[in-house]
């Protein structure tokens, strides 16, 4: 915060201080959350947040749902990158029951999770453009996101809330159409993305608007347990994919971009570079996609094919046991984290051997870093607060669980 802004805050005359509502249903909050701002003219003196407008009690719901029925709940956390949530949850259960996942499944998961990261970052960054007044750069990336959604659709049948994969692997293998669409995506996306990048990254107006908007220092970001692109923009290179590699991330060559000032521009640039790195990972994973099965040999959890259920005694028994919840489950506590679109997305699962979790807690990166928002916007004009909100990419579904 510069000295003159500090003076403004100190000099604020109570008679001039206005209290205004920013949200809960304001077009630029991109979700339902309320901030009660105290402003002196354009400058924000203080703000108070209210969250929980779309709280759906996921953790409580999960206590009455068998493990495979929890995957659709995770869709609705960060719905901009549902497959990462789904696969993160499946990996948590796999960690609890201790299965070896075939290399092919791991690579398939990496491809899907990185596609989801691209979709997530693409929307976030184009929305930063919108809030700075650049609407064109918002429309172009949507045709690219559409291609990613078509890929989801090919693999899971759904586009937004994907319910991707199963415990032990995928529901189906990459189809011929998927292969063809992925190849064409890998060919056309880089050019489209660089066009998008050239619209904003070195745009004088965009840079003037975003530089210095909503900065946070590395120390404060760490104290607030930031993770993901917001932490990296502040200059800390923490990435779960590199720190605790899961699903064979250690096989791939990628860099972790970091920013310097932790402001909106740095967050934008970190996400842009992460999209390029995600593309590199997808290319490496796809070119080296191992042969093999698209699911682990896990008859206790993975539903057998319907044709087998009708014709094969064993398959019928497993089908019955899975549906009726007669599977033995280990007792224990596991924590598994994946690098979600917004940071470390963790699942803390406590099993008492029952068919449902005894307790399941989601570590939701949005919820944890959104509490720093009042500190980040103090002394800034309201227009910068809008930019900051979109650049930290708070997703209401993940915030409120």
């Amino acid at each position, binding site marked *: 915060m510069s000295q003159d802004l500090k003076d403004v805050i100190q000099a604020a005359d109570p008679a001039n201080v206005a209290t205004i509502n920013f949200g809960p249903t304001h077009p630029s909050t991109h979700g339902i959350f309320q901030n009660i701002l105290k402003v002196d003219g354009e400058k924000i003196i203080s703000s108070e947040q209210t969250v929980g407008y779309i709280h759906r009690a996921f953790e409580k719901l999960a206590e009455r749902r068998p493990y495979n029925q929890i995957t659709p709940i995770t869709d609705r956390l960060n719905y901009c990158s549902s497959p990462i949530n789904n696969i993160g949850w499946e990996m948590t259960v796999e960690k609890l029951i201790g299965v070896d996942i075939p290399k092919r499944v791991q690579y398939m998961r990496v491809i899907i999770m990185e596609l989801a990261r691209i979709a997530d970052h693409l929307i976030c960054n184009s929305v930063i453009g919108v809030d700075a007044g650049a609407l064109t750069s918002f429309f172009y990336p949507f045709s690219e996101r559409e291609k990613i959604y078509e890929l989801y659709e090919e693999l899971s049948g759904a586009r937004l809330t994907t319910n991707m994969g199963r415990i032990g692997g995928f529901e189906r293998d990459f189809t011929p159409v998927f292969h063809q669409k992925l190849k064409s995506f890998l060919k056309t996306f880089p050019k489209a993305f660089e066009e998008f990048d050239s619209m904003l990254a070195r745009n004088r107006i965009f840079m003037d608007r975003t530089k210095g908007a909503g900065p946070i220092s590395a120390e404060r970001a760490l104290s607030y347990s930031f993770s993901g692109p917001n932490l990296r923009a502040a200059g800390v290179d923490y990435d779960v994919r590199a*720190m605790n590699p899961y699903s064979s991330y250690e096989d791939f060559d990628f860099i972790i971009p970091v920013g310097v000032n932790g402001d909106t521009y740095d967050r934008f640039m970190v996400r842009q570079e992460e999209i390029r790195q995600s593309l590199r990972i997808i290319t490496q994973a796809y070119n080296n996609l191992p042969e093999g099965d698209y699911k682990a040999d896990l008859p206790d959890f993975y539903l057998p094919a319907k044709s087998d259920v009708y014709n094969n005694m064993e398959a019928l028994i497993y089908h019955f046991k899975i549906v009726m919840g007669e599977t033995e489950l280990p007792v224990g506590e596991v924590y598994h984290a994946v690098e979600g679109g917004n940071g470390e997305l963790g699942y803390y699962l406590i099993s008492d051997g029952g068919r449902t979790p005894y*307790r399941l807690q989601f570590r939701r990166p949005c919820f944890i870093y959104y509490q720093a928002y009042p500190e980040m916007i103090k002394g800034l004009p309201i227009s910068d607060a809008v930019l900051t909100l979109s650049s930290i990419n708070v997703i209401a579904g993940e915030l409120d669980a």
Partner: protein
Amino acid sequence: MEKQNNQEYLTAIQAAFGADVLAHEEAFGMLNVELTPARIHDAIAWLQQHQDLSVNYLTNIAGIHYPDAAGREFAVVYQLHSWKNNLRLRIKGYLPKENLHIATITDLFAGANWMERETYDFFGIIFDGHPDLRRILNMDDMDYFPMRKEYVLEDATREDKDDRFFGRNNNEL
């Protein structure tokens, strides 16, 4: 310097907190340490400042309700991460239902603020010294703590949804 492992962490914690270390185990490769609740704040501060252990990151705080464990009905679980050693650990404290007080760690980690508010909101655990301990996800006028295992989730007249059908042999419900 060599990266420290679970055993070295445990030895160091035991050396520093002796009798306050009530239990420990290694669950799926992650060190769990149960401490006297009154000492947890000091233990986390000590871990944070320790040169070699260097626990610099608070991953999350979770509450758990064990209604059948007399005298230790509520657990508060702190999941911490040392980036220097790339080691995650859990610090647990068990509280009796009559006295749900534990010291806040908001002075150590700013991010603990909402995590503690969420735990209060769900379980009613009171973090002493918290700057603003209000409900966060639920309504302010709610008069119960929803994540406690006290509430029948389904229609109580239904017979097909009791615990036996969720793999638990509990005939009380």
